[in-house]
C-alpha cells in the first residue's frame, strides 16, 4: 500500500489530470470490449461467455489481414466482419438450440467454444505470441490535451468507442429496428406473433455483439500481444464492467467502464499490488447494494 502517493496525487492537479486522463482512456478501451457483451445479454439474456474468444479472433484476423495487405483500415474491417460472420454462425447453429434450456446449458455451450476456439487459434497461428505492429501513421509523439497525455492512436479508439455508444444508444432508442429489437428482448412471443422473424433478430444481434468484440480485438492488436487464450482476461474485465453497470445497459457499460478505468489508474498509485482486488471489491459492493448493477433492470 502506498497511500502517500495516492493522497499526493489527489492533492496535485497535474497528477489528477494525467491519471484522470489515463483512467478515461482505460475506461474507453474497456467499454469497446464490454459493450458487445452487454448488448447480447440485453437482448438475448445470454451471458456470452465466449465473448473473449471473439475478441481474440478479431485480433488474429486483423493481424493476418494487415500482414497480407498492409492496410490498417482493411485489417479493422476484416477483424469486424470476420467475427460478425462467426457470431452469426455460432448463434444460428449452436446457441439457438439452447435458448429454452436453463442458463447453465447456455454457459456450457459458450464454455465449449472458448476451449475449441483457443485450440483452433493455436492450431492455425501457433502457440507463440505475435504482434501486429503499429501502423506508421500512428507512430507519432503523444498529444497534450488539457494537461493530460493522449497518444493519437488512443484518440482514435476513444472516437470509435464514443461512436459505438452513440450509434447503439440512439439506434436502439430511436430507430424502427431498435424498437423491434427492444420488443424482441421484452416479449419474443408477441414479436414473432406479429410476423417478425425473431431468429433473424437474435442472429443479427449476436453477429453485432461478435462484431463489436472482434472490432475491439482488431483495434487492440497494434498495442497488445496476440496469443491463444488472450480473450480470457478481457472476458473477466468486460464481465466486471457490465455487471457493475448493469447487464444489458449500454449506458451502464459506459459508466462501469469509466469507473473501473479510474479505479485502475488511481488504484495503481495507492494500492499497486492490489489493483485487481480493488476491482473485485468494488464489484462485490455494487452487487450487494444494487444486485442489478448501476443501470440494470430486473431480468424476468
Amino acid at each position, binding site marked *: 500500500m502506498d497511500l502517500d502517493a495516492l493522497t499526493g496525487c489527489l492533492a496535485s492537479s497535474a497528477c489528477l489530470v494525467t491519471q484522470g486522463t489515463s483512467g478515461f482512456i482505460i475506461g474507453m478501451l474497456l467499454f469497446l470490449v464490454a459493450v458487445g457483451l452487454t448488448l447480447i445479454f440485453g437482448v438475448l439474456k445470454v451471458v456470452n461467455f465466449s465473448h473473449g474468444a471473439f475478441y481474440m479472433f478479431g485480433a488474429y484476423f486483423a493481424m493476418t489481414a494487415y500482414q497480407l495487405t498492409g492496410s490498417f483500415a482493411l485489417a479493422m474491417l476484416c477483424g469486424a466482419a470476420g467475427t460478425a460472420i462467426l457470431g452469426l454462425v455460432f448463434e444460428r447453429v449452436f446457441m439457438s438450440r439452447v435458448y429454452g434450456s436453463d*442458463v447453465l446449458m447456455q454457459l456450457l455451450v459458450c464454455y465449449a467454444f472458448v476451449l475449441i476456439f483457443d485450440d483452433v487459434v493455436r492450431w492455425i497461428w501457433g502457440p507463440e505470441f505475435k504482434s501486429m505492429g503499429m501502423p506508421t501513421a500512428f507512430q507519432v509523439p503523444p498529444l497534450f490535451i488539457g494537461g493530460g497525455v493522449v497518444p493519437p492512436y488512443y484518440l482514435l479508439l476513444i472516437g470509435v468507442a464514443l461512436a459505438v455508444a452513440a450509434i447503439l444508444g440512439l439506434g436502439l432508442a430511436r430507430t424502427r429496428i431498435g424498437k423491434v429489437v427492444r420488443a424482441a428482448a421484452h416479449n419474443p412471443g408477441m414479436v414473432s406473433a406479429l410476423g417478425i422473424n425473431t431468429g433473424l433478430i437474435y442472429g443479427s444481434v449476436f453477429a453485432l455483439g461478435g462484431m463489436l468484440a472482434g472490432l475491439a480485438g482488431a483495434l487492440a492488436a497494434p498495442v497488445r500481444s496476440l496469443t491463444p487464450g488472450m480473450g480470457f482476461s478481457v472476458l473477466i474485465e468486460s464481465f466486471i464492467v457490465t455487471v457493475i453497470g448493469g447487464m444489458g445497459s449500454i449506458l451502464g457499460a459506459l459508466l462501469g467502464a469509466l469507473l473501473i478505468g479510474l479505479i485502475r489508474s488511481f488504484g495503481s498509485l495507492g494500492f499497486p499490488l492490489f489493483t485487481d482486488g480493488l476491482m473485485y471489491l468494488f464489484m462485490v459492493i455494487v452487487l450487494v447494494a444494487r444486485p442489478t448493477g448501476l443501470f440494470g433492470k430486473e431480468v424476468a
Partner: protein
Amino acid sequence: MTELQAERAGKPLGVPRIEAKSQRSRYLDVLIAIAAFAVLATLPFLFSSKALLDFVIRCAAFGLFATSLNLLVGYTGMISFGHGMFFGLGAYSFALIMQRTGVPIPVAFICTLLITTVIAAVIGAICVRLKEIYFAFVTLAFQMLIHSMILSWVSLTGGDQGLRGGIPRPVFLGVDLSNYLHLYVVSCALLVIGLLLMRQIAQSPFGYTLRMIRDNAVRASFIGIDVWRAKLTIFVLAALFASTGGIIMSLFVSGAYPEFAFWTISGEGIFINMLGGVTTFLGPMVGTVLLLIMNDTVTRLTEYYGIVLGIVILFFAIGLRKGLMDFVVEWYEVRRDGAKERAR
C-alpha cells in the same frame, strides 16, 4: 429487494422432485456406503497400480466438491459460480495450520471446518438474498476477491507460488498420512462419509424444504419457512464439504496453490454437475469420474485437449441436453413404463 420479490421472477431449474424415501431406505444408504467403502478399501490389494489410487483420491476431492455444489444447484436452485473458493479455502487453511502450528491432523481438520463455517456464513449472509444470475455473479465476485487476496498476501500464502515445502503429517491414532496407502484409505473414508452425510441432508425434512424453495420460494415463505435462513444453512453446509474436498487435494499435492481458489475450479464443478446430471444424488459423482477419465486419457493422446473437451460438452449440452445420469434414469423410467403398458 425482499425475498418475495426476488423469487417471484425466478424460474425453477428443470429438476424434477425426488420422491420421499422411507426410514428403511436410510439404512439402505448406510449399507451401500459401507459396501462402497469396503470395495474401495480392497482395491489396493487387488490392483498394484498406484495410478488407480491417485485417481480415486482425486475423485474423492473433486467428487465431494461437485456433490456439495449440487446441494446448491440441483436441490436448492442456487447457481453458485464461486463454490471453488471453499475448495481453495479448505486446502489453504488445512495446509497452513499443519505448516505453522504442528497440531495433530484431526485438530487441523476440525479447525479448517470451523474457519470455513465462519467465512461461508459471512459470505453466504451477503450472497443468498440475491436471486438467480445475480447470486451467481456475486459468488463469482467473492471468489475472485479471495483469489486475488491469496495472490496478494504473499507472506501468509506464498502468493502465486503457492504454499511450498510440503505438509507435515504427524501420525495420529496409528494413521500415517505420509504413507500412501493410509492417505488413500482416509480419502476414501472422507468421501464415503461425506457422501452419506450429504445424502442424509438431501433426504431429511430440511432437504425437502430446500426443494420447495427451489420450486417455489414464495409458497415456501407463505407456509412459514424462513427462506433466507434455509438458504444460508445449505450454503454453509455445502461449503464444509467443498472444504473437505480441498483438504484431500492439499494432501494429494502436498501443498496449496492459488489455482484451487480460482473461478475455473467452480466452472469445473458446474461442468461436472451438468456432465453427470443434477437430478440424481450420485450424478455429480458420476460426472467427476467421467471428467477425470476424460482429462487423463485425452491429455495423453493429444495436446489439443480443448477441442476434444469442447466437442464432448457440446454433445451433452446440445445433444443429450442433460447429464448422463439424468439420461440414464429417464431412459430407465421410459422403459419401465413401457413394460407396464405392455403388461396391461
